[in-house]
């Protein structure tokens, strides 16, 4: 049989299996291979809720969505071209994500009665008519894998665990991906267990050959490299980039990094990542709770280290009192809030951006803090680095906001040169002459970072209101008012560090779409599409939430209407309305899921044309 090879622009694939089934692994393999092949890639892992559910149950399905493209892309895709479903539950959970006429690969060996029942199917969807709108490719994946590995020494159970690599081999064939990356990875991963290297390599190859051999697969696809700015790239997950950004900031500042944390999804992987950098002098401390975690970071900051703490909404709530202490003590501190879907425990493995106002206001009294948010995995590095820079320059805690979607997503990252990273100047005063703990730098209003161990600069700080300049405890009414204003002013002055707002599109148009955080990809793509259709719409994505860029009010004046899409009930909108008295319109989704591009597009359509 003559196979066809077709050139396409891009593809989106979803791997889905029981959570122990290896979807995350082969998803990552395919991502790396595609990235190395020069595609732009974007991924979206979809972890099951909390605990490993019994095999075959709906609650236990783990998914990995991957989009790779010869064009620049910003999201893992609204809808999939291919779905690889390892069992009925995986099918059921994900079938809605497959586009009409999309390719559905299923392991039919797993479609026995018991599995169907576990997935809540009354009849076998492969046998009834429910899947006719797709190209269903049933594969005896279990049998074929066993067959391929029958000469290995592995137990049946071990053999079955190689099925995912068999599937990967198939997908590699479909998209003409070289398998070298996977071979290499297996060698490193199982360095001490050569039998696993062999078996998975066999499975991989067998899957690949299967496609070449069988008539089920007629066409393979080729996706050319995307155009990237020149430079060196690697594929990176959001939390990994955040961890690297923190290490980079500490190194550039010449400071020790002390990261205090308490495990919580989706922040934990920052802790895991940083714990591997002891050779950079990084001190990760898993503490008894979130309060202790921020406590050690504050203590470290007082001692002259870069103190950082990270958590997610419920844990951040617990840190509020201590963050407020750092605020009044005017110590540099970076607080990473990797948001997940709330309220309360909420949906811990789902994404949302509903903690913005919590970060603004979740502390008693007037407690202004700079807040910046990352927009995508590759942006985490730069944004958290900027958070560190501001914290040190202005002597203030800074809130860095990310979210689960960004934290767990991956995409190519243009690796910066260390020498190109912005300088972070640290000045530990030593001069006792005229030293005062709350004497401020004129421009930034930062107070001196005088650290224990410095002779002659002994002083006391604390959470009681402090007298201007001396820092002594003060109950003087006018002093309190002055200090409240000084602290607000200090944060306001950070506006000088914010570059002019970049408008994507015309600076005067019908509609401005204003966004922040992890919605960047969907919003940017939607606006690109609309602009390509000639619509009068522009996009501004905010990194700095507090203070807002000083030209933002002016920028918004160029537009008849402002649309603010958010994964919450309208939190940025509330701030924009209050600040600029603009009747900004919201597009609000609160489903624990990122925006689909089409959702943003149709809201734009609605606003531009009045179609509802």
């Amino acid at each position: 049989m003559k196979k066809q090879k077709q050139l396409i622009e891009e593809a989106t694939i979803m791997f889905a299996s029981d959570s122990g089934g290896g979807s995350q692994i082969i998803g990552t393999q395919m991502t790396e291979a595609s990235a190395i092949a020069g595609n732009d890639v974007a991924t979206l892992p979809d972890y099951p809720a909390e605990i490993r559910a019994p095999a075959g149950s709906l609650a236990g399905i783990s998914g990995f969505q991957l989009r790779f493209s010869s064009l620049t892309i910003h999201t893992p895709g609204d809808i999939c071209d291919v779905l690889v479903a390892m069992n009925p539950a995986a099918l059921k959970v994900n079938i809605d994500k497959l586009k009409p006429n999309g390719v559905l690969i299923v392991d039919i060996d797993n479609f026995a009665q018991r599995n169907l029942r576990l997935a809540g199917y009354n009849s076998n969807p492969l046998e009834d008519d429910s899947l006719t709108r797709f190209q269903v490719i049933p594969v005896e994946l279990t049998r074929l894998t066993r067959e391929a590995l029958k000469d290995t020494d592995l137990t049946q159970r071990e053999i079955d665990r190689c099925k995912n690599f068999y599937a990967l081999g198939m997908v590699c064939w479909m998209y003409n991906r070289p398998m070298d990356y996977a071979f290499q990875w297996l060698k490193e991963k199982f360095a001490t267990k050569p039998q696993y290297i062999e078996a998975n390599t066999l499975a991989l190859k067998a899957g690949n050959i299967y496609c070449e051999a069988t008539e089920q697969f007629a066409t393979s696809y080729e996706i050319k490299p995307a155009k990237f700015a020149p430079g060196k790239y690697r594929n990176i997950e959001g939390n990994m980039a955040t961890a690297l950004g923190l290490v980079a900031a500490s190194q550039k500042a010449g400071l020790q990094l002390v990261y205090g944390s308490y495990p919580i999804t989706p922040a934990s992987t920052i802790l895991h990542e940083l714990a591997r950098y002891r050779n950079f002098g990084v001190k990760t401390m898993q503490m008894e709770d979130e309060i202790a975690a921020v406590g050690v970071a504050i203590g470290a900051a007082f001692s002259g280290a870069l103190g950082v703490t990270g958590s997610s909404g419920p844990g951040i709530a617990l840190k509020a009192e201590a963050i407020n202490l750092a605020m009044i003590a005017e110590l540099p501190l970076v607080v990473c809030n990797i948001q997940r879907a709330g309220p309360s425990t909420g949906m811990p493995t789902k994404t949302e951006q509903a903690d913005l106002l919590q970060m603004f206001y979740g502390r008693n009294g007037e407690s202004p803090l700079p807040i910046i948010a990352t927009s995508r995995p590759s942006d985490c590095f730069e944004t958290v680095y900027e958070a560190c820079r501001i914290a040190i320059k202005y002597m203030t805690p800074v809130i860095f906001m990310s979210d689960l979607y960004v934290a767990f997503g991956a995409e190519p990252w243009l690796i910066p040169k260390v020498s190109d990273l912005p300088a972070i100047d640290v000045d530990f005063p030593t001069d006792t002459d005229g030293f005062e703990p709350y004497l401020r730098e004129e421009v930034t209003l930062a107070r001196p970072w005088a650290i224990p161990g410095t002779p002659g600069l002994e002083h006391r700080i604390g959470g009681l209101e402090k007298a201007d300049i001396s820092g002594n405890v003060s109950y003087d009414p006018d002093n309190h008012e002055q200090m409240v204003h000084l602290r607000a002013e200090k944060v306001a002055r950070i506006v000088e560090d914010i570059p002019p707002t970049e408008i994507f599109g015309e600076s005067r148009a019908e509609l401005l779409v204003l966004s922040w955080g992890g919605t960047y990809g969907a919003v940017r793509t939607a606006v690109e599409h609309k602009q390509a259709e000639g619509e009068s719409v522009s996009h501004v994505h905010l990194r700095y939430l507090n203070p807002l860029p000083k030209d933002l009010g002016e920028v918004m004046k160029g537009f008849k209407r402002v649309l603010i899409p958010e994964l919450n009930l309208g939190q940025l909108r509330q701030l924009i309305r209050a600040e600029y008295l603009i009747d900004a319109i919201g597009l609000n989704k609160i489903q624990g899921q990122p925006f689909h591009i089409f959702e943003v597009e149709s809201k734009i359509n609605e606003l531009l044309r009045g179609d509802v």
Partner: protein
Amino acid sequence: MKNRTSSSIPLAVQTLTKQDFTADQDVRWCPGCGDYSILAQTQRILPDLGIPKEDFVFISGIGCSSRFPYYMNTYGFHTIHGRAPTIASGVKAANPDLSVWVITGDGDALSIGGNHFIHLMRRNFDINMLLFNNRIYGLTKGQYSPTSEQGKKTYSTPMGSIDNPFNPISLALASGATFVARSLDRDPAHLRGVIKAAFEHKGTSFVEIYQNCNVYNDGAFFTYTEKETKADNTVFLEHDEPLVFGKDADKGICLNGFKPEVVSLTDGAHTPDALITHDQFAEDRTLAYFLSRMTEAPGLPHPIGIFRSVENPCYEGMMTEQINAAKEQMGEGDLEALLNAGDTWGVE
């Protein structure tokens, strides 16, 4: 800093005086408060410890006691209620060369801060904690605390409190504390000695200090601190010495199974040999625990002194070791290499 031995003390340091440790702020405790004595003893003993003033850091929570750092002319941080151990841990982790002191109250350490307290003990940072136990909330004007005796009538418990109090010594021991001691605001010499021993101990040192709050809980410890009653109601723990007490050192404590028993040393039936001999260095902490429980049995004297003092690796030391080991194994961190690690590809 503790590893500087006294022989290597620079001259400048040796000449520090109490005055050097006195801050320029007015002390604002109630006249007659036991806190004054603790402050004075601390200021007196610090110059003898052989480390420069700038290396001391005093960290407190919130409470009357927690105002302490303001009065010490050292680095200080008056933090938030109950959290001083965490902030102190951060200070010590970031800079193991500092001499870090936590100043706390019975409410601060054992009520809101109870979790940080037990975790500090188990981590064994080389930090010294002085707990001013006045068995009351002073700063918030007289509510009962976790060390108040059951039945205590306070503003918040007009009919008497119904929770059983903690025994801070037992709790510290069970949490893994390596140095545990008790002293008295009204016994300056003993207090200075214990503070010094706490400083010298490498690892977390926990010192409970009975402190009189003359406004809200006056006389809570007079039985143990006042001349008339002290000798018969306290037993001072000395390493390798039998447990002897009483005005004329006429009583001792024997072990009966797991129970302590008071015996007379004058009736001829018992000699000091039969008594329990204190061993503050015992690895096993059952003896120390046993002594801590003596506070509760009626008729038994109250133990004062060092219950336990055992060397164990410190958190910050092990952290440093890991860092050194990592550097040895992987080489000193190279940022450029780190950013470029993993699978990379170039685009021209």
